[in-house]
């Protein structure tokens, strides 16, 4: 367990900024309790200072997980978000997409979102923007990247792709062993 290097934190924050924009600073500097990002076996965790200090007593090899896993660094140095980061992403998301009930399941099985399933979308969402997906009852169910901007979405046919799949809550069941 160690803090992120400068390059790592740059890559990491760039990815977060795609979803929550400047709200990243709210994650970094919390008012209630000091939190920090820690890297352990190429996974990045969001931990409160207290837990982080307690976990320093545990040898690195034995430490399986701590705090909330935000994602992992690939061998080539890219950062991949995990579905476990959804709580924080949903809280601070800049652009949101609401999914119609009939295509919720399709999304949760790992499919892309089609125009037919698009319930609502934040005004002025550009294309290729990280978005968090919600059910119509405001329960977060994953995140992805928009294929089209809000403006373009209006004129699309129902089978057209709207949001590319990145992560969905179904992964809690599908990828249980590698997730945390």
């Amino acid at each position, binding site marked *: 367990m160690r*803090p992120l290097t400068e390059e790592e934190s740059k890559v990491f924050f760039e990815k977060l900024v795609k979803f929550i924009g400047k709200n990243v600073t709210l994650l*970094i500097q919390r008012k209630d309790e*000091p939190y920090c*990002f820690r890297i352990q076996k190429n996974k990045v965790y969001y931990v409160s200072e207290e837990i982080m200090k307690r976990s320093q007593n545990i040898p690195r090899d034995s430490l399986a997980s701590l705090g909330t896993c935000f994602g992992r660094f690939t061998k080539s140095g890219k950062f991949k978000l995990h579905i476990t980061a959804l709580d924080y992403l949903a809280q601070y998301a800049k652009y949101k997409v609401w999914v119609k009930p009939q295509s919720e399941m399709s999304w949760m099985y790992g499919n892309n979102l089609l125009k037919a399933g698009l319930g609502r979308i934040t005004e002025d969402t550009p294309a290729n923007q990280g978005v968090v997906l919600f059910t119509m009852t405001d329960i977060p169910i994953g995140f992805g990247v928009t294929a089209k901007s809000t403006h373009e979405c209006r004129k699309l046919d129902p089978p057209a792709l709207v949001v590319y799949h990145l992560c969905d809550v179904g992964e809690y069941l599908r990828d249980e062993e590698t997730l945390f």
Partner: protein
Amino acid sequence: MTVVNASDILDNNKFANAGHLVDKSDTLIYDLGNLCAFDHSSINIVSYKANAKEYIDNLATENVQLLVSRLFQLPLKTIDEGTLALLPKCTTPIPRERALPESKPKTRWEAFAEIKGIKKKKKSRMEWDKKEEEFRPTYGYKRANDETAVWEMNAKPTDKVGDDPFQKMIDEKNDKLSKQKQREQRNFDESSMRQMGSVGKSLDFSKDKRAQLKSDLDHTFDVAKLATASLGKFDKQVENEKALPKRGKKKLAGLGAGDVSQESENATKLVDRMFKKENVLNVDKAVRQHVKAEEKQNYIKKRSGSFSKGGPNKKSKSK
């Protein structure tokens, strides 16, 4: 046992010439020091083609006979075991069997002494000791003029109270010793480095050495790249050039490991810097707003224009 003489077996009539027993003019070039003779005469093609083996055998026999008879003409020396022929000096240069031995790498002092022309003087093992008035070894146990083997020392005005001059002397001596050790180590390091480096050695292009050769070249290139004032930062890049490998420790963003507040401050700064670079303007949104505003103005213009022209005109059209 009877000794068979070669000249008995050979046809005596054939070799009437008593000088060398060979019926042939002696055109050979001799190098008796190497027990060699060279026949430069041209081959008789007719007899060679008729029977090559016989021709060559004959030629060789005659030439060897010539060489041997020359050997017997050499000055002789008799020793207990028999008679020796004294060979002249070799005239044909023959290459060495092994490579020349490599010279031992010079120490710094040796290199310096060579430049300065300082020569090593032979020191005698025994030296005259003035105090004891006898010859003593130059170094080692009970050596001559030993400065440390004194039981008293004169106090100097610079001496401080509490300092032990004897201890000081020993310390100085140990200091010198350790410095010499360092010099020896340095000489050793330098010479071994020179041996390791491929400078001045021929490259081995064999297939199994190719990977090593390539990585060596890459390494040399990396080193050479640093040899500018900017450490290669502003150099013109070659096509498909690899970036310099990063050396040294990775810099941790929150170097005050454990101090979370400092760390989060650094992270905030980093994010701020990212936003400064990023273009804040949302082009799509701006364009849309602009288009909308124009449409609205057009609409207002149209409406106000139609009112000023008068309603009845329009009404009549619609009717």
